[in-house]
């Protein structure tokens, strides 16, 4: 035991660099996996936790008038109801920014169902009638703290100053800004004062169901029962989907990288352990001659190499935890996936090092028996190559590369897998760049949305058209439409006219060209289970809307559940005057500048919103890609060190012979570098090819499942790929060069074999 520990310590000390590399690689992979698992799990977690904590409602109904709650409660499957609460739309003015909000009247006694859980401060109190409680994500987005003053403007234009008394969590709706308007709770009396006009407010009722799966059925009943009253219906599924928005994409990306990375890392570890064992066969035999048993040697190797893996796991868990904690701000890292990842990785690591350990333990205890590389004869090709006077270093090195088949394969494959992932990472990067460089390809032809605030819509349009950077001005409106069969609301975006259609990026089918035609995102097609060419029946505020879907667009918003059509396809009451003007800018124009100019020209009379590019929302992916590329490079490096150490070991005794044959030190060095170089080039090229082959499909697949739709992927540019390949091969050769140089210069004893 002690003797074994002594040996392990000495061996680890002798290959500190490699050991460190192994630990770091495994740590990086484990951190990525944990982050991925938490992101994927956490995508649903905030909702699940919040829903349980707040005793949330499964179904929310917005109605024009106060509904008959008793009747709603009697629907089969409804357990409890909450509300109705009166809710009025207001605009919050905070630090010169305007944010849409809903003031919801709530009693002093928090309700049983869907009760907001106060995170900071306190709940509403009659002693402070001006106080409000703000939903947490909204408060954070606006920078509101306890005691902050909130200026709200009602539809009438009247301003009221309210004070934040509490900040609360709620599962009533998604997080701001993914879900608008933001949510503010006030006392009913205060709401009556801010918005006395009943016609400008709506009533919100929540239903808690006995079985969440019955939501669809119940919501249909509700829609039938309330009929024209219904403004908007949404279910817990939409709330959950809204809460997990970006995490899911990130999580999927990380999980993909993590799992493939784990495979690569384990291969690297197995390769490293195997290579080390191979180069230590003599030492192992010596140990056996001293009295180490087969089991002891196997245990020794397993402990040594396994310990590196386990240390990596131990080091990877806290960063993984920390990242999720910092990025997601959740204190609850799910324990089950964490344990599964830790145990799974440990198992895989032990299996990976177990095989070489077992092989090492079977070394005969005769230390004198040299572990020679398998002999190979010069192939006909090689002989031909020598005949036509190719440099001998090239021929010999290329032959050496394959003299050990399994390590050669592990090396090439071990480099190919990280390279493939790096290529995929570059593809994601290129796709994000594509989003930024061509926002019109993701449906963001209009870079600014102008809402007439104090001006008339015509004035706003005229002002916008006068700006030199503005290419075109599209009228637009967004309404919620009920899908009768589904009994839930979707977003209908009307922008441009059928005559001068807004250039939606249609990737399938065609653009709408007439009234009654529309294009939809993948998410909507999936939701309604319709195909291009199908007709859909919707209801917008009681008015039926029948459109034929003639094409599919790339739709980055709202999980792709958006129907886009021309303004003239909607009823006049919804679009005249237009709710906003979408401004398409001339190429090269800076949206921020145009915005400032328009604001100045209108005397702050306009509300101008910059369209947020999805790439900006996904900017964190770039950080992830860089970090993962670093980890993958470590894996590649680990493989390379193994290959080069093994190559040196196999050829240490040949060096003298090669020199005796008349090869110069430089040629000897070239032979050694060539031996690993061939494998490097093979692995890198194969990995890049495989990566560029799958990357577009993968991104489009992700796009499809996330509702954005296929057609967003951009392959990495040939230049980018060429640079990546050159950098990888160059770095690899540089790494192989150092030991080769040392070996070529060293005096090699011809004895000992």
């Amino acid at each position, binding site marked *: 035991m002690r003797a074994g520990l002594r040996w392990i310590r000495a061996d680890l000390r002798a290959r500190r660099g490699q050991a460190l590399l192994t630990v770091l690689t495994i740590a990086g992979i484990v951190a990525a996996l944990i982050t991925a698992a938490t992101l994927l799990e956490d995508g649903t977690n905030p909702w699940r936790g919040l829903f349980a904590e707040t005793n949330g409602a499964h179904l929310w109904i917005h109605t024009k008038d106060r509904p008959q709650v008793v009747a709603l409660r009697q629907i089969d499957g409804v357990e409890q109801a909450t509300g109705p609460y009166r809710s009025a739309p207001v605009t919050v003015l905070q630090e010169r920014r305007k944010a849409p909000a809903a003031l919801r009247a709530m009693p002093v006694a928090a309700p049983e169902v869907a009760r907001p859980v106060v995170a900071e401060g306190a709940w509403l109190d009659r002693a402070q009638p001006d106080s409000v409680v703000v939903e947490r994500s909204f408060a954070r987005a606006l920078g509101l703290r306890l005691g902050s003053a909130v200026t709200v403007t009602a539809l009438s234009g009247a301003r009221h100053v309210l004070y934040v008394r509490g900040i609360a969590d709620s599962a009533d709706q998604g997080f701001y800004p993914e879900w608008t308007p933001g949510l503010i709770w006030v006392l009913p009396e205060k709401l009556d004062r801010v918005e006395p006009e009943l016609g400008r407010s709506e009533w919100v009722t929540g239903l808690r169901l006995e079985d969440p799966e019955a939501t669809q059925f119940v919501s249909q009943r509700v829609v039938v029962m309330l009929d024209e009253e219904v403004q908007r219906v949404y279910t817990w599924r939409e709330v959950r989907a809204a809460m997990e928005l970006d995490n899911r994409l990130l999580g999927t990306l990380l999980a993909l990288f993590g799992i493939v990375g784990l495979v690569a890392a384990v291969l690297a570890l197995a390769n490293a352990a195997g290579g080390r064992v191979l180069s230590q066969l003599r030492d192992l035999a010596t140990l056996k*001659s001293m*009295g180490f048993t087969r089991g002891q040697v196997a245990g020794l190797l397993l402990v040594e190499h396994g310990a590196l893996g386990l240390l990596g796991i131990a080091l990877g868990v806290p960063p993984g935890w920390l990242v999720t904690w910092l990025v997601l701000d959740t204190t609850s890292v799910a324990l089950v996936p964490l344990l599964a990842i830790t145990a799974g990785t440990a198992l895989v690591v032990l299996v990976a090092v177990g095989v070489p350990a077992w092989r090492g333990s079977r070394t005969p*205890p005769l230390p004198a028996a040299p572990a020679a590389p398998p002999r190979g004869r010069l192939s006909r090709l090689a002989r031909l190559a020598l005949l036509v006077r190719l440099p001998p270093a090239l021929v010999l090195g290329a032959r050496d590369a394959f003299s050990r088949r399994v390590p050669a394969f592990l090396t090439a494959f071990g480099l190919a897998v990280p390279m493939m992932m790096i290529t995929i990472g570059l593809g994601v990067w290129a796709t994000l760049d594509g989003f930024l460089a061509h926002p019109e390809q993701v449906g963001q032809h209009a870079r600014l949305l102008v809402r007439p605030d104090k001006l008339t819509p015509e004035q706003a349009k005229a002002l916008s058209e006068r700006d030199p950077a503005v290419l075109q001005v599209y009228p637009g409106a967004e309404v919620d439409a009920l899908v009768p069969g589904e009994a839930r609301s979707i977003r209908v975006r009307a922008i441009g006219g059928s005559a001068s259609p807004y250039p939606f990026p249609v990737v399938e089918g065609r653009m709408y060209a007439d009234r009654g035609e529309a294009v939809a995102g993948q998410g909507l097609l999936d939701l309604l289970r319709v195909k291009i060419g199908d007709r859909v029946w919707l209801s917008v505020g009681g008015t039926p809307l029948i459109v034929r879907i003639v094409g599919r667009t790339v739709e980055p918003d709202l999980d792709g559940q958006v129907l886009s059509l021309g303004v003239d396809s909607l009823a006049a009451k919804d679009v005249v005057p237009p709710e906003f003007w979408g401004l398409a800018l001339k190429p090269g124009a800076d949206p921020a500048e145009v915005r400032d100019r328009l604001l100045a020209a209108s005397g702050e009379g306009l509300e101008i919103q910059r369209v947020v590019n999805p790439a900006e929302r996904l900017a964190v992916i770039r950080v992830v890609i860089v970090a993962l590329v670093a980890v993958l490079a470590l894996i590649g490096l680990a493989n390379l060190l193994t290959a080069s150490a093994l190559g040196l070991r196999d050829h240490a005794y040949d060096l003298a012979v090669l020199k005796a044959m008349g090869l110069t030190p430089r040629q000897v060095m070239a032979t050694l570098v060539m031996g690993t170089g061939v494998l490097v080039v093979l692995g890198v090229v194969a990995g890049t090819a495989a990566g560029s082959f799958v990357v577009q499909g993968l991104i489009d697949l992700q796009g499809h499942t996330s509702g954005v739709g296929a057609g967003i992927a951009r392959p990495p540019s040939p230049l980018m790929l060429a640079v990546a390949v050159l950098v990888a091969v160059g770095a690899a050769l540089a790494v192989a060069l150092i030991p080769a140089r040392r070996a070529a210069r060293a005096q090699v004893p011809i004895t000992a074999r």
Partner: protein
Amino acid sequence: MTVLKTVNLVKIYQNNHVPVPAVRGVDLQVDEGEFVAIMGPSGSGKSTLVHMLGGLDSRTSGEIWLDGKRADTLSESAWALLRREKIGFVFQFFNLVASMTVADNVELPALLAGASPKEARERREYLLDALGLTERVEAAPAQLSGGEQQRVALARALSNKPSLLLADEPTGNLDSRNTRDVLRLLNEVHREGQTIVLVTHDARVASLADRVVSLLDGQIVDDGKIVRRRPGRGGAGEVIDLR
């Protein structure tokens, strides 16, 4: 007392299904405190024999008795346990563990045999002191000369106080000065009562032993005790007698 006994020991290698006999029926008996040199030309089977005696190689048939217990039927692990306690090996190419220091190399067998770190350290200090290697204790094997390495290997072989020291061409890779040093040490160890079986093809090396066993084509062709008259004070040197 007999430390080592072999009865009709045979080793036949299989080379591409062609049997190649290396050792052909060796009967050998080594008593406690004896220094036996096994001599013979290359390919005479002497290394194979000594490897079998230490359990590094398996026998084809015949018996090996160590300290009165039969050893040839032992499993690989049991042989390892036996080696730990009773056998020390010195090889031609030293076979020091490259990643360990001199101190660790020497302490390893003692630790393996179950000595406490303190005991192992004391034993190591004693041995390295006796072999004149005290100042190289933290060096790596690669930093040592061949003679130094072989002395370390000898110290390592003696670290677990073996009842049998097996040496396979211990001077085969050394120059004459280092050969002399190593032989002097072996002689000293022998004088302290260590049983030694040494394989060599060098008559000068063999001349140091009490008894020389000559091997040819895997069979013992000669087994003779060397009687040496004690040289007198300022005497004329040693006279070797083959009986």
